[in-house]
């Protein structure tokens, strides 16, 4: 199961999607926006996706993980639209024969999802709003500039 959805994440459904009689281990990652982010009181979040490419990238990442580790099944789902603070916006679920692979693949997948899958977060906080990717890129440029000056 690879999708972007406006609905709250349904973890039991995701677990059924990765169910497999040869799976001894299932690892689930859920990402949630914290109420405080970088010192700002986050009120609301909104996610936008390039939906068709996002699900295509999720499938490609799952296929890459399955080449790297012996996995049974993978599911990746990301919410889009408004997400209340405290509710999960992304789930990565991996089943495998053994737990070391399930942990390693799940961790690798969420790292790659955050780098690669075309989804953007806009934070609405007290006093404003900001697209998060831009900010991170600007912060990275500022850090690079400071390093350059030393």
């Amino acid at each position: 199961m690879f999708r972007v959805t406006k609905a709250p994440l349904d973890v039991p459904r995701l677990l059924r999607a990765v169910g497999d009689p040869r799976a001894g281990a299932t690892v689930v990652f859920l990402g949630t926006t914290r109420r405080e982010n970088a010192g700002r009181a986050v009120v609301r979040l909104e996610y936008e996706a390039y939906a068709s490419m996002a699900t295509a990238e999720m499938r490609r990442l799952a296929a890459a993980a399955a080449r790297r580790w012996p996995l049974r099944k993978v599911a990746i789902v990301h919410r889009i639209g408004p997400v209340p603070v405290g509710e999960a916006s992304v789930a990565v679920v991996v089943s495998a024969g053994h737990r070391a692979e399930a942990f390693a693949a799940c961790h690798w997948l969420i790292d790659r999802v955050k780098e690669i899958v075309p989804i953007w977060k806009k934070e609405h906080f007290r006093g404003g709003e900001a697209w998060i990717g831009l900010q991170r890129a600007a912060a990275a440029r500022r850090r690079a500039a400071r390093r350059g000056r030393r």
Partner: protein
Amino acid sequence: MRVRLRFFAVLRERLGPGGERSVAAGTTVGALWDALVAERPELGAVRVRYAVNERYVERGHPLADRDEVAFFPPVSGGG
């Protein structure tokens, strides 16, 4: 030839969701972006990534007729 443009996140806010555009044969995705920036210089501040037909590409990727060309800032999904 004609390509379909798509913009996301802050670029969608500034440029709208996209549309059709005519480009000369052999135009690269980077040259197309430079043409867009020439029309709207404030876009020059945005660090942009390129995708053609739902796959990431580099600036030098040559466009083909009917390509879907997406421009967007660094991604920030994942919770």
